[in-house]
């Protein structure tokens, strides 16, 4: 009774971990399926696909989630056939599997919620199972979920092993007494074995069968010895006996000749990170021997922990050089493991809020550290200054390391869109090819999470409004298949995400007409071209002629912009009619801490992101005068550099100094200078949001607290660049008030 309670307790405890893991597996399954659409014959992907489903089924079985097991089993059967090359992954099959995967996810989610009912989807599941059966051509017998079957699947890795077939395998098998009672028939087993190759010299030890008087006819007494000429691997052969594995004794002696082959084989193996698996796959060890050795290893772990290799050498007679070749291979795989998909090793799950707590503390530490360093400098004691500097260095390293913990490649988010693109395109009857560039670009996790929704909307928008129907595209002389590109790259301390399509582009007249209709633009005023396009980000703007499911509710683009701006990012759109559109999103790499460059103007302090600072030049007397908005130009190595004076721009009340500096900033593709009085050096900057009062201040992205308690404003270099570069065409009123929104709609 108490053990049952313990079990229940354990299950309840472990269930959330199972669910999150199963969800991840299911996610990976989806990604693999989508990847396979481009490469339907990729054996590795097919293998990984099978393993995903198998893992879900296996762990669901441990938790007694029968519905998940039963359903996933059918999926797994089909995947197994795909993996063995008995079938090919067609688009229709892919769609079916994706839908099945949705069901798996649903079932797994329901497992975590005792109130959830999966009844309403039961009919759909049944239909899917039916479709799976039709597809895989398997008989509808439910008996397939026996543990035997699972065992067989778990030993198979689906790797065709063709090289071991140089000689015959020697098999000796003794069927257990209960074989018949368990519904197994040695005759069928032998027939199956015969299908793997040619059975030669079969000797049945009929002596073991007693005479009729002694015989219990339901006891099985068969024992066979034979040679099998086959190209199949040890695993495949052994798998033939898996249904009777529990009550039969099987000895499998591999062909003698294969030592040198085995070494080659190990090197040629695609993926397997376990020593045992490697050895089993090449046929050097049989699964049963491996299991025995593993058990022995577990037993011995109290005393001297034995190496698996040694044990195998000892017990299974595997030669040392084979083991060392396998170990080498394993080492290599471990090194490359970080890059392979379907790799489940070496991660620690950490709750995001714990990490956030650490980062918050780190922010405080950085500020406190800066304060301490300042005090140390004021004492003018060399050793104290040195010590505090060292502390500062360490803090910086910890900061970098900790922030790195939160960095995830944006590719994960991008690949989520594959499904969206696929389904949406199908729904709209369009043909779309999604291209992902720079998926390994890293970004703070919280950013990734918060950018996913805006991105989703933009992608849908591009699919719905941007790309045309195939007929329309052909008529325009474009390939029927539209292209949608998601690209990411790092640029000057921020990340640039682009969504490109080669669709019809945005018609400026329609945008303008709609903007007038909605009162976003005064009648009679025609803003410049590129400003017209930005109008689509205005609240309440939608050009869709009819409202579709996907987009066109008119709540989209302005929300997108608001979300991105909330991340201290910017969004802009450019478009060539008939050629397509490009939406660029710029985001800071992290929300928390940056390397800053501290500058002073009068008594005010400002932070420029250090990544954006290219160089600092002396402010030379120049012929050009500072205009009303604090702008002028200087010559830098033969090129014109626009310079913005912070004093004039923000109307700072302090006399201009004779000596001042120009900090050259690179923001995106632009360069510009910022005129400042003092250069105060590098500063680790913990970003705090601007208060509501200053929230609309343009050119700023946040504030920070300096070591001495002063507040410094942090510049948003892109926005500041807009100020420096804004053409003379728009005569906006001067001063800070004009900087609230660059939205052309206010013109």
């Amino acid at each position, binding site marked *: 009774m108490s053990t049952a309670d313990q079990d229940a307790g354990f299950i309840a405890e472990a269930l959330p971990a199972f669910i999150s893991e199963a969800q991840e597996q299911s996610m990976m399954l989806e990604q693999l399926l989508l990847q396979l659409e481009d490469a339907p014959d990729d054996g590795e992907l097919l293998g990984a696909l099978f393993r995903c489903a198998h893992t879900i089924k296996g762990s669901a079985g441990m938790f007694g989630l029968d519905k998940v097991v039963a359903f996933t089993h059918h999926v797994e059967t089909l995947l197994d056939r795909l993996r063995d090359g008995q079938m090919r992954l067609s688009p229709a099959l892919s769609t079916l599997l994706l839908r099945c995967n949705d069901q798996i996810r649903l079932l797994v989610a329901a497992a975590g919620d005792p109130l959830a009912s999966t009844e309403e989807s039961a009919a759909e599941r049944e239909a899917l199972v039916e479709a799976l059966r039709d597809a895989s051509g398997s008989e509808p017998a439910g008996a397939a979920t026996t543990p035997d079957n699972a065992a067989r699947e778990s030993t198979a890795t689906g790797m065709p092993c063709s090289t071991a077939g140089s000689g015959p395998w020697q098999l000796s098998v003794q069927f257990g007494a209960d074989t018949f009672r368990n519904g197994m028939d040695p*005759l069928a087993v032998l027939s199956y074995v015969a299908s793997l190759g040619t059975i030669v010299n079969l*000797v049945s030890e*009929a002596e073991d069968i007693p005479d*009729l*008087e002694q*015989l219990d*006819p*339901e006891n*099985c007494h068969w024992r066979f010895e034979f040679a099998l000429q086959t190209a199949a691997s040890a695993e495949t052969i052994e798998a033939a006996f898996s249904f009777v594995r529990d009550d039969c004794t099987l000895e499998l002696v591999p062909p003698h000749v294969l030592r040198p082959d085995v070494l080659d084989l190990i090197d040629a193996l695609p993926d397997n990170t376990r020593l045992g698996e490697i050895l089993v796959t090449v046929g050097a060890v049989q699964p049963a021997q491996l299991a025995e050795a593993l058990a022995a290893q577990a037993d011995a772990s109290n005393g001297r922990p034995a190496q698996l290799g040694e044990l195998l050498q000892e017990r299974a007679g595997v030669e040392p050089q084979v083991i060392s070749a396998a170990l080498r291979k394993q080492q290599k795989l471990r090194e490359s493991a970080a890059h392979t998909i379907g790799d489940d090793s070496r991660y620690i799950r950490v709750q995001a809020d714990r990490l956030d707590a650490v980062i918050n503390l780190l922010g405080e530490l950085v500020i406190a550290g800066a304060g301490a360093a300042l005090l140390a400098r004021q004492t003018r004691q060399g050793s104290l200054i040195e010590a505090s500097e060292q502390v500062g260095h360490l803090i910086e390293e910890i900061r970098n390391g900790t922030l790195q913990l939160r960095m995830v490649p944006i590719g994960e988010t991008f690949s989520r869109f594959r499904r969206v693109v696929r389904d949406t395109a199908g729904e709209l009857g369009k043909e779309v090819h999604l291209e992902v560039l720079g998926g390994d670009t890293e970004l703070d996790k919280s950013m990734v999470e918060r950018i996913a929704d805006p991105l989703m909307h933009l992608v849908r928008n591009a699919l719905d409004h941007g790309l045309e129907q195939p007929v329309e595209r052909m008529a325009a002389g474009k390939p029927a298949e539209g292209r949608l590109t998601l690209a990411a790259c790092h640029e000057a301390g921020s990340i640039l995400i682009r969504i490109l399509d080669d669709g019809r582009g945005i018609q400026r007249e329609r945008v303008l007409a709609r903007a007038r209709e909605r009162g976003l633009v005064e009648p009679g005023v025609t803003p410049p071209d590129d400003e017209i396009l930005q109008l689509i980000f205005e609240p309440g703007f939608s050009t869709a002629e009819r409202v579709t499911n996907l987009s066109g509710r008119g709540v989209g683009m302005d929300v997108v912009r608001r979300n991105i701006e909330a991340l201290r990012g910017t969004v802009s759109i450019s478009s060539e009619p008939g050629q397509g559109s490009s939406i660029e999103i710029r985001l800071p790499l992290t929300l928390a801490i940056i390397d800053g460059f501290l500058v002073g103007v009068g008594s005010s302090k400002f932070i420029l992101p250090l990544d954006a600072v290219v160089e600092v030049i002396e402010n030379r007397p120049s012929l050009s005068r500072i205009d009303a908005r604090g702008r002028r130009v200087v010559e830098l190595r033969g090129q014109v550099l626009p310079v913005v004076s912070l004093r004039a721009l923000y109307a700072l009340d302090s006399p201009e100094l004779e000596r001042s500096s120009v900090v050259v900033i690179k923001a995106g593709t632009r360069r510009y200078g910022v005129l400042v009085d003092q250069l105060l050096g590098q500063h680790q900057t913990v970003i705090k949001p601007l208060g509501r009062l200053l929230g609309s201040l343009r050119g700023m992205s946040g504030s920070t607290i300096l070591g001495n308690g002063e507040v410094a404003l942090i510049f948003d270099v892109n926005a500041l660049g807009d100020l420096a570069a804004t053409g003379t065409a728009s005569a906006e009123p001067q001063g800070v008030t004009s900087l609230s929104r660059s939205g052309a709609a206010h013109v």
Partner: protein
Amino acid sequence: MTATLTLPAELTIYSVTQLRTAWLDALLERRQSAAAGTALLSIDAAAVDEVDAAGVQLLVALAKSLRADGTSLELRNASGPLSQACQRLGVCALLGAAAPAGKQA
């Protein structure tokens, strides 16, 4: 009791218990009857339609018992399924055409 047994259509795990009882009776009868001295027992196997390893095992056991009596077993007209099964299980020598050449008393 004649020297001929007839195999049923189904020679499988489902029928072996019943068959064994019948065959034991037949053996007993045979031992008591005049046929005991016959060196050959012919079994008509034409009807066998379904067969599994349990069924073949029963035949082997029968042959063994007969051998103890100094009698050989001969399968006649073995049907396709039966001869295939015997071949697969490596017992065609015991049950098949070689039987007439078996031991004689």
